[in-house]
């Protein structure tokens, strides 16, 4: 059990909300969240549909442990076909709305069709209705959140919504919940806006029961919390320094993509690092970091709450940005910072606020700005194209102006909203786009971390670190240390990380637990909560099933082996400094062995036996 066994189907074309039973046969194979919603999506849409057409569907989905007492059990995902990549998209978020959905009695909301006028979904336990969002359209995430809390006179309601960037068609807009948590990648918010769905408001107090063996569940979750509390990363490193602790580490190992991946080390890294976020500033003697923060049920609390320096140019006469809000994570600090060559911590924090305020992915945004800066510096675009902005590497002013324009889709912001791939194609320099399957890279240069090159090339949602985070092994030594500059054993390592992550992403738990937990710690929690026999092996098999289902969706959508690659810059232009000096990513050494390890043909297609073994 642990599932509520209830799906809310919202037909936006007809304006109806209907309850239906959860498909438990699928739940037993795909758990929840990423896996289960991907199963529904693969069943219900033609993978070839236009992602922004009414024929696409958007699924908000919890996992069986969402809303329970398991540590980090507050996760939810948004699953759809991506307008950025044309592949399947699954974006995972924390905060509180996932647990609220579950507490309201639902496992999943499926949105289909397209509303004639802007609407939002209001859910109060089992009562669900679509209401007019005429007054909300054109408002930011932060304004929408405030208005909806006031309209419903319910400070405890949990809200997920899209900002103005999504309304304007920015292809990497996310769905923001609880003001600054995000189902951020692959343009899931753009799909939501295309359906004229502005927000989802949820209030639930039914509780999350249905635990199959409550006593065993309490024991298993308590044991697992002890593991987190005794692990130096989850008990000390992440709460104190956040993911930003990696800034100096990754720079030191020479895997820090810099200035649109032209270099692999950033001379300004220390100025935008976790350590810098703790340093008191001159103006008011306070550090950038105000406090850490936790999502629902989390005993790690890695979140960052920050302020911009009150004397910084970005917030002069803008009191709305003077308070504390979601601060820089490693990924956003990298994309907004070293990838653009900007080492102004406050400019990055401000740009990150804008990404949250209007709901667009800071990774894709920063990487697109970096591409625009290279286009500008090589003369492919001019001041005429940028509306007068000097888009030069290292310019904080260019970065923050670009953020403001992308938020509203004005001027050059409309070009930036295309993402790096389409922007570089538009201006005749496709080779300058640092993307896989149209999605921008995250913060690890695959010339310095070989396994990540394979993980990026084969990720089912385009370049992404969260689909197979071999950095954990290659750099941090978790669970075992491997050589980041070697390709040996990487195909199997990547497959293992991909399958395990797909399983964790389907439970309702946070993937950051896996710096301390293995599937040996997770399986007893799932097994106690859910019907069926859940072991580390069956979880890993579920993960492999999910991976193959996603792959099959992508192949049916028209993607091929040719899409499992990296930009030429990473395959041909050697790293200039650091331990990886002289190295390129040796994808060709890894990809064939990876296909074989997966039970796929040389063309990258799952063999019939593989699909049969996994019951895909």
């Amino acid at each position, binding site marked *: 059990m642990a599932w509520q066994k209830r799906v809310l189907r919202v037909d936006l074309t007809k304006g109806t909300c209907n309850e239906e039973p959860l498909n438990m046969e699928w739940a037993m194979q795909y758990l929840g969240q990423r896996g289960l919603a991907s199963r529904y999506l693969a069943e219900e849409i033609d993978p070839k549909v236009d992602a922004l057409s009414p024929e696409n569907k958007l699924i908000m989905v919890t996992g069986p442990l969402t809303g329970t007492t398991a540590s980090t059990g507050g996760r939810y995902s948004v699953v759809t076909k991506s307008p950025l990549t044309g592949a399947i998209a699954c974006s995972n978020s924390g905060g509180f709305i996932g647990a609220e959905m579950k507490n309201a009695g639902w496992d999943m909301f499926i949105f289909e069709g397209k509303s004639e006028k802007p609407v939002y979904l209001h859910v109060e336990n089992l009562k669900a209705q679509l209401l007019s969002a005429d007054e909300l359209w054109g408002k930011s995430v932060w304004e929408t959140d405030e208005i909806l809390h006031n309209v419903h006179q319910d400070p405890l309601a949990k809200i997920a919504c899209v900002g103005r960037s999504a309304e304007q068609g920015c292809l990497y807009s996310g769905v923001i919940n609880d003001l600054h948590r995000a189902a951020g990648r692959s343009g899931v918010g753009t799909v939501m806006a295309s359906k004229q769905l502005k927000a989802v408001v949820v209030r639930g107090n039914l509780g999350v029961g249905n635990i199959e063996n409550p006593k065993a569940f309490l024991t298993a979750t308590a044991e697992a919390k002890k593991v987190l509390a005794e*692990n*130096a*990363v989850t008990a*000390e*490193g*992440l709460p104190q*320094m*956040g*993911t*930003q*602790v*990696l800034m*100096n*580490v990754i720079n*030191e*190992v*020479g895997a820090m993509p810099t200035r649109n991946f032209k270099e692999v080390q950033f001379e300004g890294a*220390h100025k935008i690092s976790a*350590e810098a976020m703790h340093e008191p500033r001159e103006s008011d003697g306070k550090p950038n970091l105000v406090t850490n923060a936790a999502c629902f049920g989390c005993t790690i609390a*890695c979140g960052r709450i920050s302020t911009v320096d009150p004397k910084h140019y970005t917030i002069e006469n803008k009191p709305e940005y003077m308070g504390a809000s979601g601060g820089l*994570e*490693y*990924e956003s600090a990298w994309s907004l910072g070293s990838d653009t060559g900007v080492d102004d911590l406050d400019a990055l924090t401000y740009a990150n606020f804008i990404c949250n305020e209007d709901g667009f992915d800071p990774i894709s945004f920063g990487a697109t700005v970096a591409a625009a800066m290279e286009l500008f510096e090589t003369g492919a675009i001019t001041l005429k194209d940028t509306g007068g902005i000097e888009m030069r590497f290292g310019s904080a002013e260019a970065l923050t102006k670009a953020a403001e324009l992308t938020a509203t889709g004005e001027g050059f912001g409309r070009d930036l909203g295309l993402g790096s791939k389409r922007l570089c194609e538009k201006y005749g320099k496709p080779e300058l786009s640092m993307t896989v399957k149209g999605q921008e890279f995250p913060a690890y240069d695959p010339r310095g971390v070989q396994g990540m090159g394979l993980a990026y090339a084969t990720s089912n949602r385009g370049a992404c*670190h*969260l689909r197979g*985070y071999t*950095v*954990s092994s290659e*750099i*941090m*030594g*978790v669970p075992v*240390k491997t*050589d*980041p500059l070697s390709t040996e054993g990487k195909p199997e390592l990547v497959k293992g990380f991909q399958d395990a992550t797909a399983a964790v992403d389907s439970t309702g738990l946070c*993937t*950051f637990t896996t*710096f301390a937990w293995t599937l040996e710690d997770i399986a007893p929690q799932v097994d106690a909560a859910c019907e069926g026999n859940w072991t580390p092996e069956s979880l890993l098999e579920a993960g492999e099933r999910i991976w193959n289902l996603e792959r099959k969706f992508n192949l049916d959508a028209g993607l091929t082996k040719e899409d499992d690659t990296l930009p030429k810059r990473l395959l041909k232009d050697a790293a200039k400094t*650091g*331990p990886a000096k002289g190295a390129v990513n040796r994808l060709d050494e890894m990809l064939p062995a990876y296909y074989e390890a997966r039970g796929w043909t040389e063309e990258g297609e799952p063999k019939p036996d593989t699909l049969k073994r996994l019951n895909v």
Partner: protein
Amino acid sequence: MPEGSVGNSTFIEILANTSIHDVLLRYEIPKDTVHLVLLNGIYIEPEERETPIFSEGDVLALWPPVAGG
């Protein structure tokens, strides 16, 4: 951090036959708190931390267990 440090880095002088563990001892850094050890950005295995390893101008970086994403 020792006196004279700038931010999280400092310059130190060591004898030719110094090991990484000798450096930890000198600054009273408990061995078990040091997880990630990089010499010029390259990971040094725990068993290599007892033997002399340094050359002139090397950069040693030390971290407790860290992770992120």
